[in-house]
Each structure stands twice: as C-alpha cells, then as structure tokens.
C-alpha cells in the first residue's frame, strides 16, 4: 500500500487554503513527501506538516469573509430592532434606563467612597515596609491595643535589631505642648492660632519619605530647634519664598525661636496622620530624664523594616528582648513590683507590627487618630449592591411584563428560521444597549452628585478620569448589568412557542406574575429596611442631642487660647463678670467634650494602696466656679469655697467614683492617687464627658491650674452682642492675640458627626432606593392598566363605581407592599438593634418607627399606583371599546 501524507495536516490545509492554489500546492507537497519518504518516513511526515504550517499566512488563506458578513448584519439588525423598541415605548424605556442609571450612579458613588477608604497610606515610597508598633494587653480576655511607647523605645529597636532599617516616633500630646499654639513669624507682632503641631523625629520624616518642597529630607530636622512646615503653612507665612532658615516664634517664646529646616508638601487627605508643624525631637526633653525613662509612654513608634523581613517573627523577638533588657530592670528599679509580678504582667502583653496601610481602618487601637470603619465599608457595599439589584429588578419586571408586545416578533422570527440562541442573543443585545445608555447617564449623574456626596461623607473624592482602569471597569459594569438584567427576560421571551403566539393564545404576560410579585416584594422590603434604619438613626441622634447629660451645654461660650493672658486671667474673669450678659465664668481645660484635656490616674481609699487594685479615673483641674458654670449638680456635700483655704487639698468625686471605691458616705473620706491624699467634700452627679457609646468613668474634680480655656455661661440670648462684649475685654488685655471661641453645644454636637453623617447618608440612599422601586411600580401599574383597559371599560359600562375600579387596580400592589412590610420589620429591627448595641446610652426602638415607615411605604406606593388607576377609571368606556 502506498504511504499516505499526514491526514490531519492535510485536512487542515484543505480547510484554510485558497481553492485556486489548492491543487498545485497539494500536488507539489505530495511529490516532495514521496521523494523524502523513501529516505526517512518520519522526517518526511514532519516536513510535510511543517510546510503546511508555513502556508498558514495571508495570501494563502482563503477568505472567510462571507460568513463574517452575515453575522455582522445580524447584530446590526439586533441593534436596530432594540433601538426601535426603545423608541416605540418611550415611557417604559425611560423608566428602564432611568432606574438602572440611578442604581448605577449610587453604586459608582459608593464604590468611589470605598476605594478612597481602602487607599489610605499607600502613597509612601516604602509603604509595604512601614509598620507601626502596637502593644496588645490581655486583661482577662479584654484585649486593649495601644500605641504609646517610652521615649527610648524607638532608638532601642533600631540599635538592637538589624532588621529595623529606621525607627521613629512622634508626640502629638497636648500635655507636652503639641496640638495647638500661637504662632508668628519672627519680626511680626500679631500671633495666629495654629493647629496640627507635633514633635517629630528626623528619622520618622525619612520613614515616610515625605516629599520635600524646600530643604533636604535627610537633614531637615537634624538640628535642635528646627521645625518643618507644610506647603500650605509656608504659603501663609512666607508667600512665594523659600522659608528655609527663617524663624518662627511659637507661643510668644522669643528666646527660643524655631528655625525652619524645610517645607514638606501637605499631608494627603488619605494619610492617617495630619500635621502642619513638625518640631524636631532632637535635643528635646520634656522633663528631667524623660528621654531615657521607661516609665512614661507617650510616643507612637514606627519602624521601616529591611526588605524581606518577617514582621510577625520580628515582633515576637522584640517583645522578649525589650522586656528582658529594658522594661524589667526599669520596673524593678522603681521597687513597686516584684520580678515575678512583672513577668506575670508582661505575660499578658505582646507586641504587634501593624502595616501602615492597615492603620486607618483599624479603629480598635487607642491612638487618638481619625479612623475609618470597616463595618461602614461593608454596610455601604451591601447597600450599593441592593440598590443595583432593585434597579435590575425593574428591568426584569418591565421586560417580562411587556413580553406580550414582543411575543409576535419572537414567533415570527422562529417561523422564519431563527434558533432560540439567536433570539436570546437579540434580547441580550437589547439589554446591553440599555445598560450602556444607563451607564453613560449614571456617570453623568455621579459627576453631578459628587459635590453633594462629598459633603455627606466628609471626603474630597474626585472622579478618577486619569486612571487607566476606569474604562475597562465601566465596560465590565455594562456587561455585568446587561447580563444580570437581561438574562432572565431573554430566556423567558425566547421560550414562546410560535404556534401559540401567532394564534393569539398567549395569556398575556400573566405567567410570570408570581415572579414579578416576588421581585416587587424584594424591592419594597429593601426600601422599608432603609427607611426604618434612617428613622432609628435619626432618633438616636435626637436622643444624643437632647439627653440629660449632667451638665448644661447651652449658652456656654468657650474662649480658647487663654493661656496667653498669663497673670491677667483673673482680671479677665472679673471684667467678664461685670458684663450684664455673663452669669458665670470658669477657667479649666478639662471639659465634658472630646478633644479637651484628659489624664489617667489610679485611686484608692486612703490606706488601702497596698491591699486593693486601684480604680482607674481622672482628676480634673478646675477652679471654684466650674460646677456653676457647667450647670452640674452637687448631690452630697458642698461645692468648693473660695473662703476655705483647705479646699485646695479637697476633691469632689462623681457618683461613679464613689460607687467604685465602695464609699457609702463619701463626704469626709480621704482618697489617694499614690502620691497625694485628698479630702472628699462633695459628690457631683454623674455627667457624660465621653461619647455616649461608653459608660461614665470615675472622675474627680480638684482645684488646680489649667488656663487655656475660659468657659463663659451667658444669660442672654443675644449671642452676637455677648460675643462682641467679650471680645472687647479680650482685646483690651491682649491686643496682639487672636480672639478665638467656640460654643459648648456645638463642640458637643461635633462629637457625633459620624452619627449625623450616617443619618444623612442613610436618608439619601433610602430616597434612592424608594425612588427606583417606585419607578418600577409606576411602570408596572401603567402596564396593568393598559392590559385591563377593556375589562375596566366593560365594568364601567355595567355600572361599576370609580371607587371599586380604583380598589381593583391598587389592591394587588398594596398587598405586596404589606407583605414587604411584614418581612422588613424583623429584619430592620435586628440590624438596628445591632447598631444601637454600640451605644451604652441609646434610644429604644419603638413600635411607632415601624408603623410610620410602613405607612410611608404604603402611601408612596399608593400614590405611585393611583395616578395610573385614576386615569384608567376616568377614561370614557367608548374610547376603549369602539375598536374591536
């Protein structure tokens, strides 16, 4: 038998080769094959195949154009039909596209928000290697995580561990003069009040490799007495010049001006630390021996690890080493604890190296920084997806409901020879067209709403036009939404049997009505949950603002920066009291609102220091008028008295402190914090001084000096006049210092900005959701009226009242909303209960909230549906019935 050339290769060749070449080429190939075959059959086969592969090139491949042409025409036809059906039913199309666009716009905004939250701190050059050191303390299963470490901790890390390339710390504590200050440039007279002041290590500057506008990153903070400012501050004090080497005077200390070592560009909004004045730590010691003591922990500490270091293993190594080498000797030296106790205590603690990119979203750490909340991100993400689903449901509902209109088309296509696959392709094309249009509109809507959304979320998001990922992502969104919304209708519509459809036998769209009902119920359940949540958050905010706090926050003016008055502070107080509008004044930096001074102490009953565990609490330095000014209430004993000199050693405790110390009759008892003993002269009623999320903690008030803030209780409602009068007194005493003030109630409300923000965001999204759901309901009701037009007319002719027609048409929809309400109630209750559990002091979830929400949902649904129903009932029967 004659040998045959490789069969598959030949088959392939015949498939792709131009027909006019085929005979010649095949002949030549075969001839060569036979000639070679005699020498080596295998080689001949291989060469034959190889030659064929080499023919696979333009010029030899036959034209496949004819088949391309056909399917392209098909798609063109699909698009044309889609466009026509879009135009034919304008109202439904607008609702379909509009609903999808609204849903997508909400999704876009939320996605931008989430991306922004996740992007924090990824802009540093070496961000994968930057870690913050976190101390974790396990107090009987109660984990607390803190970032404060002793001053020598950071240098020790770098010195003892070669894996650590750089270590650095900052100190932003008001106790050491960071935070806020009066600043002027050398040679000026007027001070300005500035915030964002911090003590900063040169090495920390290098760890973050902050971009420098002027000066050198490696030396900017090297010298003692240097300061680095941000660009924004440089523009303010030295517009248009390089301020390096110039002097700034902080808090009027002319004798120690700060030399500007450089200017960094402003901290990005997506940075977890936000400062404006970085004062060098070089050569600074806040008290005798402070830089070498292991007793005082005041410094958040960062490390830059060498590439390839295992952070987890290193943290463990550090824990052991640092405790053995530094902590243990230091604590033994104080003589308060035995070595065994110390080891036992340290056994409950360990170190953690936290990647810098994790800091922002980890709100579990006590670090006095602004944090995002991972739970918010999940919550928002869920809301976004739900809104999108609602929008897709509209699309599905309307497509299947209007199916009768397309049924004939489908039937005819099938008769003419269309496969089911073709028809599915056609309807998917249609839904892609819709989702493309929606996407375009959604981007426009998102651009329009972005400023408003930024206001809501307290962010400064811009649309990422320049990012190359944007277009592919939008494309994927169009595809996904197209498939999500179009798949079910495509399969449903393409399943019609031509013979039934063309006979007119189709029960017009009623087949899937249970499916539609389910989807409507889903939409309204989501909407009602959002409405209920909005109400409950609003209630909680109301509760927070109107709660009995134990002090009176209204009509209290806070004059800040009063430290500059120095010895004149008493004159200031006296002159203020002369004003008719002023009732009381008090000097104290310790106020029952966030971001005022705090401290930590342990307290014991006198003589029980050794026996008991101390009660953690604060001791606030106040003056004699504090309790009147704040409107606090003494429940036992008496207030401080100027006449009694011994009151300087006295203390007023709050009820919690008295209870925790186990004092039955507190007045007259003596308490100690370890180094001073104080006499209790009174008990003040518990007042809230931290967030309502927490329980009231033990606290006591003592006479002391803390002169930065003067609180002024006014009796007048004319705040404007009062302010002017107070400012006049201020200007008389210190003409060159800016007069700054806030109001106690505003500062209090600001503590709950996150709740207010959440309330606003929920309101917006609830509106979004209900709007989209109503669009769908509106279209469905319009469709139903259209369907039953003849029936209604006949009913009217036979004597049905308007009323009964209205009931007939709306009843069904209302039933659906009621069902949604029944499902939504427990769901919303559970979710909001979880949220409220975050607050120790919270409002109760009343039945009224649910009733109100349900009523609103039903009312909105009724309004939506009734427009169409009333229109249907008002139509003259003859109009509908004359053409049959």
């Amino acid at each position: 038998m004659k040998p045959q050339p490789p069969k598959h290769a030949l088959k392939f060749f015949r498939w792709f080769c131009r027909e006019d070449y085929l005979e010649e080429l095949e002949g030549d190939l075969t001839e060569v094959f036979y000639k070679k075959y005699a020498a080596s059959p295998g080689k001949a086969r291989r060469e034959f195949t190889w030659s064929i592969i080499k023919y696979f090139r333009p010029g030899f491949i036959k034209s496949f154009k004819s088949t391309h042409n056909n399917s392209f025409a098909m798609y063109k036809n699909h698009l044309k039909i889609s466009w026509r059906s879009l135009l034919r039913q304008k109202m439904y199309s607008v609702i379909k596209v509009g609903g999808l666009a609204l849903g997508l716009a909400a999704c876009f905004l939320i996605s931008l928000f989430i991306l922004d939250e996740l992007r924090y701190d990824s802009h540093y050059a070496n961000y994968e290697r930057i870690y913050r050191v976190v101390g974790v303390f396990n107090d009987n299963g109660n984990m607390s995580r803190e970032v404060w470490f002793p001053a020598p901790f950071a240098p020790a890390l770098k010195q003892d561990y070669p894996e650590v390339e750089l270590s650095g710390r900052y100190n932003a504590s008001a106790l050491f003069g960071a935070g806020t200050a009066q600043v002027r440039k050398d040679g000026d007279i007027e001070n300005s009040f500035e915030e964002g002041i911090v003590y900063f290590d040169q090495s920390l500057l290098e760890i973050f490799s902050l971009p420098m506008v002027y000066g050198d990153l490696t030396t900017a903070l090297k010298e003692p007495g240097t300061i680095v400012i941000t660009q924004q501050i440089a523009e303010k004090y030295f517009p248009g010049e390089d301020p390096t080497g110039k002097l700034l005077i902080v808090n009027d200390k002319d004798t120690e001006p700060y030399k500007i070592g450089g200017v960094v560009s402003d901290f990005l909004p997506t940075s977890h630390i936000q400062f404006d004045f970085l004062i060098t730590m070089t050569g600074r010691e806040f008290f005798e021996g402070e830089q070498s003591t292991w007793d005082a922990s005041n410094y958040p500490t960062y490390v830059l690890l060498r590439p390839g270091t295992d952070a987890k293993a290193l943290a463990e190594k550090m824990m052991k080493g640092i405790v053995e080498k530094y902590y243990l000797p230091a604590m033994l030296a104080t003589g308060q604890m035995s070595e065994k106790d110390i080891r036992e205590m340290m056994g409950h603690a360990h170190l953690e190296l936290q990647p810098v990119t994790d800091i922002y979203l980890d709100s579990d750490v006590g670090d006095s920084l602004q944090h995002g909340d991972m739970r918010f991100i999940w919550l928002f993400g869920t809301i976004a997806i739900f809104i999108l689903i609602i929008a897709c449901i509209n699309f599905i509902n309307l497509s299947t409901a209007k199916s009768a209109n397309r049924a004939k088309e489908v039937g005819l296509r099938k008769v003419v020879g269309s496969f089911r696959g073709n028809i599915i392709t056609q309807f998917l094309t249609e839904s892609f067209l819709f989702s493309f249009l929606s996407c375009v509109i959604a981007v426009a809507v998102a651009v329009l709403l972005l400023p408003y959304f930024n206001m809501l979320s307290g962010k400064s998001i811009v649309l990422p036009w320049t990012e190359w990922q944007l277009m592919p992502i939008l494309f994927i969104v169009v595809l996904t939404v197209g498939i999500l919304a179009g798949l079910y209708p495509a399969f449903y519509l393409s399943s019609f049997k031509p013979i039934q459809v063309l006979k007119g036998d189709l029960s017009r769209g009623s087949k899937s009505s249970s499916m539609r009902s389910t989807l409507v119920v889903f939409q309204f359940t989501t909407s009602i949950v959002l409405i209920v949540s909005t109400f409950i958050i609003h209630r909680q905010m109301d509760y927070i603002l109107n709660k009995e706090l134990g002090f009176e926050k209204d009509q209290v003016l806070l004059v800040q920066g009063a430290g500059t008055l120095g010895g004149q502070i008493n004159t200031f107080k006296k002159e203020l009291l002369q004003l008719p509008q002023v009732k009381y004044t008090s000097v104290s930096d310790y106020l029952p609102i966030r971001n005022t001074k705090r401290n930590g102490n342990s307290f014991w009953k006198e003589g029980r220091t050794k026996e008991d565990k101390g009660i953690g609490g604060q001791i606030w330095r106040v003056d004699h008028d504090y309790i009147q000014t704040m409107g606090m209430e003494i429940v036992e004993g008496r207030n401080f008295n100027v006449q009694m000199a011994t009151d300087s050693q006295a203390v007023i405790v709050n009820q919690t402190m008295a209870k925790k110390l186990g004092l039955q009759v507190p007045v007259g008892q003596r308490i100690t914090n370890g180094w001073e003993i104080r006499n209790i002269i009174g008990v003040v009623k518990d007042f809230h001084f931290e967030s309502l999320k927490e329980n009231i903690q033990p606290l006591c008030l003592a006479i002391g000096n803390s002169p930065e803030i003067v609180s002024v209780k006014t009796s007048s409602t004319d705040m404007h006049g009062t302010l002017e009068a107070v400012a006049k007194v201020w200007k008389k005493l210190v003409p060159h210092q800016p007069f700054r003030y806030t109001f106690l109630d505003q500062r209090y409300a600001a503590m709950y900005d996150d709740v207010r923000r959440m309330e606003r965001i929920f309101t917006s999204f609830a509106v979004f959701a209900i709007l989209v759901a109503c669009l769908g309901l509106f279209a469905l009701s319009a469709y139903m009226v259209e369907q039953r037009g003849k029936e209604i007319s006949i009913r009217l002719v036979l004597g049905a009242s308007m009323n009964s027609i209205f009931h007939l048409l709306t009843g069904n929809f209302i039933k659906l909303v009621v069902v949604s309400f029944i499902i939504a109630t427990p769901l919303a209750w559970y979710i909001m209960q979880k949220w409220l559990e975050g607050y120790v002091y919270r409002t109760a979830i009343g039945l009224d909230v649910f009733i109100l929400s349900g009523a609103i949902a039903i009312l909105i649904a009724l309004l939506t549906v009734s427009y169409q129903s009333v229109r249907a009932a008002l139509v003259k029967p003859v109009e509908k019935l004359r053409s049959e």
Partner: protein
Amino acid sequence: MKDHSLGEFEELVLLMVAALHHDAYGVSILENLEQHLRKKLNISAVHVALKRMEDKGFVKSKFGGITEERGGRRKKFYVLTALGKRVLDYQYSLRTSLYNQIPKIAFHS
C-alpha cells in the same frame, strides 16, 4: 523599474524559472535551487515567491497533465513573461555596472 521590486530569493526563483524554461514547476524549481545553493529549502518558500511574482506579472502559469507521483494532481508550470525578462536584464546590467565600478587598486596590496 521602481515598482518592480525583486527580493533576493525571488530573483533566484525567477532565474530558475527562466533556466528551466518549459519544465519549471514547484518541485523542479525547489530541487534545482537546493542543488545549486547547496542548502535545504522549504517548498512553501518557493511557492510564496512564485505567487508573489505571478501577482507582479513576472511569471505566468498553466496546468500540465496528471502524473502518478503526485497522487493524481496536476502540475502547474511557470514561464517567464516579457516583463520578467526585462526585470532580469535590468538587475543583471545594474549589478554588472556596479561591479565594474569597483576600483581594482583597492585589493592589490
């Protein structure tokens, strides 16, 4: 002769078509070229060159009779056209004239 570009391999194939006269078809061209150049060639390379030159009008082709060794498929014979001949002449004269311009002195030392 600007538009009548001719690649190096194409020129060889064209010369071979001319040399073989009425006996030039794929396999004969391939075998003769392999023999003269003393290297292995792939049949597809010859076909690519032939088809290109046919498009340019340097050669024309016609089918011959059926032969057994090709599995019953006809041969396609190629012959040089008048244009093809002119192209070859032009190439030859161009090379010769350039060759003659080589200064003889350069290689004497």
